[in-house]
C-alpha cells in the first residue's frame, strides 16, 4: 500500500513538474522573443537617428536608407512571424537585424564626421572667396571711378564756352 502511494505521489510530482516546466519554457521562449524584438527595434531606431543626424549634417544618405530598409524588412518579418506564432523565425530575423543596424550606425557616424569636415572647409573657402572677390570688385570699381572722374573733369575743362546770342 505504502509503495503504491509513493509511486502515485512520484507520478503526480512528475506530471506537475512537467506541466510547470513546459509552461515555464513557453513563457521563457515568449519573453526571449519579445526581448529580441525589442532589442532589434531599438537598434533600428538608433540606426535611423544616426542616419538622420548624418543627413542634417549634409551627407548623402541614400545608400544608408537602403541598408536601413533591409533591417526594417527583417524586423517587420520578425514581428509578423511573432504575431503568426512562429517564434524561431521571429528570433532569427530579429537577430539578423542587429549586425545591419550596427553597420548602418557606424557608416552614418563616419559620413556625418566626413561631411562636417568637408562642410567646414567649404564654408571657409566660400567666405574667403567671397571676401577676396568683394575686395577685388570694390577696388576695380574704385579705379574705374577715378578714371571716370578724371575724364569727366577733363571734359568739363576742355569744354568751349558758348556765346549766347542776344536776340534783343
Amino acid at each position: 500500500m505504502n509503495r503504491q502511494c509513493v509511486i502515485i505521489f512520484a507520478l503526480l510530482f512528475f506530471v506537475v513538474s512537467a506541466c510547470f516546466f513546459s509552461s515555464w519554457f513557453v513563457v521563457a521562449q515568449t519573453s526571449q522573443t519579445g526581448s529580441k524584438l525589442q532589442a532589434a527595434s531599438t537598434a533600428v531606431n538608433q540606426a535611423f537617428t544616426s542616419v538622420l543626424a548624418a543627413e542634417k549634417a549634409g551627407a548623402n544618405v541614400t545608400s544608408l536608407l537602403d541598408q536601413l530598409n533591409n533591417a526594417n524588412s527583417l524586423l517587420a518579418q520578425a514581428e509578423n512571424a511573432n504575431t503568426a506564432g512562429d517564434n524561431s523565425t521571429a528570433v532569427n530575423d530579429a537577430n539578423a537585424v542587429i549586425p545591419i543596424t550596427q553597420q548602418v550606425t557606424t557608416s552614418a557616424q563616419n559620413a556625418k564626421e566626413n561631411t562636417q569636415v568637408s562642410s567646414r572647409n567649404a564654408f571657409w573657402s566660400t567666405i574667403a572667396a567671397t571676401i577676396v572677390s568683394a575686395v577685388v570688385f570694390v577696388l576695380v570699381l574704385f579705379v574705374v571711378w577715378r578714371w571716370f572722374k578724371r575724364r569727366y573733369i577733363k571734359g568739363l575743362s576742355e569744354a568751349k564756352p558758348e556765346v549766347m546770342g542776344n536776340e534783343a
Partner: protein
Amino acid sequence: MKLNDYKLVFIAVGLIGVLLIATPAIAANIHLPGGQQFSELYLLGPNKMAENYPFNIEISQNYSVYIGVANQMGSPQNYVLYVKLLNQTDILPNNTAGTPSPIQPLYECRFSIANGQNWNSLLTFSVSSANVINNQSTIENLNISGLVFNAEKPSIWNSTASEVPYRLLFELWIFNPQSNSIQYNDRFVDLQLNYTQPT
C-alpha cells in the same frame, strides 16, 4: 548728370555687386523654413489605380491592393504601417483626438523614406478559414502576404444597415527621434470587405 549723381550710381553698383558676390555664401548659411510638412498614405487597387478594390471576398481567393506612403516631411522618416482587421463594432481611429484604433495589428510593414520620395508595396490577402451561420460570419484565419494570422473576427451581415461587415485598416505610424518611439501619424485608410460563402 552732375559728378555727384555719377558717384551715387557707382556706389549703388558697388553695393549691388558686393551683394551678388556674397549671394553663394549667404545662401549656404541661411536656411529658410520649408513648406508644410506631412506624410501621405494611399490605397490603390490591383492595377495601381483607384478602382477595382476588393469588396466581396470568398474563402481561399487571393486579393491584392497596393499600399503607398509619400514623405513630404522635409527629412528622411522611418515609418511603420499596421494592418488591422475590424468588424462593425470595432473602433476606428479618431481623427479629432489623433488616436489609433485600439485593435491589435495582424501585420506590419516597416520602411524608411527619403524626403520627397514614395514607398509602395503590393499586399496580398486571403481568408484561410471562416464560417457563416445564418447572417453571422466569422473570419477565423487571414493570410496576409503568405503568413497566416489568427483573426477570429465575427461580424453580422445586415443588408439594411450602412455598416460593412469588415474593414482592413491601414494605420501609418512614424518614428519620433525626440521621444525615441513610434507614434500614430493620424493617417489611415481602410478597405471595406464583405465575406461571402462560395456558391
